[in-house]
């Protein structure tokens, strides 16, 4: 498969077209905005956390196919997971899309998220894939539950 077809594979296009958990959660425990001023990608992530587990996760907003599919897959992947599981998923996902796992990373345990591994070949797009993740990650580890934070995935990724 060519790099471009690897990047825009069916699963990603499908999540882009019909994103999962694409809704707001009224009175969510945690709400966070992810914004990339460079390309205008802008999402709001909603999380409900109960007994150290992600009881519900959703998102709203607009952006490119990569950022939207990533947000969609992320909300699906973290629902039901413990905070620790989310943390290790975040670390693994981050390592894969930033290419830290090498050219052919083992993405077995990432499930459908593995479809985003192709992003590592496109340095300019890594921040698209990680935008929702950084937003989610920052709010999950926030000590005080400030209702809204704006997170920008850094451009050096």
């Amino acid at each position, binding site marked *: 498969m*060519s*790099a*471009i*077809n690897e*990047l*825009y594979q069916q699963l990603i*296009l499908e999540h882009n*077209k019909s994103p999962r958990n694409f809704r707001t959660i009224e009175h969510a425990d945690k709400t966070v905005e992810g914004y990339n001023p*460079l*390309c*205008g*990608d*802008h999402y709001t992530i909603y999380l409900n956390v109960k007994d150290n587990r992600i009881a519900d996760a959703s998102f709203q907003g*607009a*952006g*490119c*196919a*990569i950022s939207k599919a990533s947000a969609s897959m992320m909300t699906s992947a973290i629902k039901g997971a413990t905070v620790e599981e989310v943390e290790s998923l975040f670390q693994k996902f981050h390592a894969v899309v930033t290419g830290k796992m090498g050219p052919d990373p083992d993405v077995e345990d990432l499930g459908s998220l593995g479809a985003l591994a192709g992003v590592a070949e*496109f340095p*300019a*797009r890594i921040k*698209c894939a990680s935008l929702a993740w950084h937003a989610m990650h920052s709010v999950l580890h926030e000590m005080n539950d400030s209702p809204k934070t704006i997170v920008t995935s850094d451009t050096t990724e």
Partner: protein
Amino acid sequence: MKKNDSAMMMDVDKRVRFDIERIREDFPILHTLVHGKPLVYLDNAATTQKPLHVIDADQRYYHSQNANIHRGVHYLSEVATFEYEKARGKVKNFVNAADNHEIIFVRGATEAINLVAHGYGRKFLAEGDEVIISAMEHHSNIVPWQMVCAEKKAVLRVIPMNDEGELLMDEYEKMLSPKTKFVSVVMVSNSLGTVNPVKDIIKSAHALGVPVLVDGAQAVSHMKIDVRDLDCDFFAFSGHKVFAPTGVGALYGKAEILDRMDPYQGGGDMIESVTFEKTTYNALPYKFEAGTGNIAGVVGLGVAIDYVRRVGFEEVEEYERELLAYGTTLLSAIDGVRLVGTAREKAGVLSFVMEHVHPHDIGTILDQEGIAIRTGHHCTQPVMKRFGIPATARASLAFYNTKEELDALGRGIAKVKEIFHA
């Protein structure tokens, strides 16, 4: 390649008539392969590529001319000063200013506008005064005015535009009042391509005695500039958008208004005398050129100007008009593609959006085909908001582009549609 200067100049003269093949030969970077495909460079509004003449001038400067200017009595300092001031004369002719001392070298359009906002705005604006800009300004012609307006409690007013991306001149006329103290407008919009009727804008402002700055960043590579015909009070542009190096640009200002302004920065070269009690400022243009500037860049700008003048703006305008019309027809014919910015008077820019595909994704797929465009808000977020879109994909032209390259763009877009099933 090693020839003496006069032999090289003759070569240049022979080389540069409007012959697209030969022109492309002058730009070595155009022969780059990107992902195994020939580069199609359509990001000229971001920055233009440099001809060999400019690249060689940079080499030559550091090889045999480098010294600080206006300072030494030694040979090299005189050579460098001569080259630097010669370039000022070229810029003067390029924009048809009356005098060399009306040309101030700066880092680029951004610094030029900041210089005026600072040196004129901070000195002459007062509470309740109004500054008028337009709805299609680059951030660099918004933020400096916002800053000075906030400081002076002045009001920033914005000329609106229609759905084609044309300024509503009636609204502008209504906006002008005795409160208006400055007008700063873009000549060619970088995100829409609109060529604004700056001459009319200036005339109306002058009727009230209001000075006008023209942001010419996107105009200089596409059309002949005549600041005296426009009668603008200031004209700002960047060298890198007119085939010169980055980090250099020029501000034209009418001498009588520059004289009344405060310096922008303090330091060496801009002074006449310094004591710890008082400093008196140097004459124009040095009053505004504090510190050691980009001397090689200035020399390169002079060489770039020689180059475009030899290509000839008449030829450039005619060729680019045809190219733009060709690209407009080509993109309009593609199902699912919509042009953003459809003004009657346009130059150099084809901004577009596609149904169901975000511009960022368009950019990545085109890049894989070797095609360089820009995607995003192009430093004009208010324009994006006005059109209700987050971003556009933008193909922008220079005279070295060809219809074949636009055909490649068309094929690239077909590929985008194929991948996205759009």
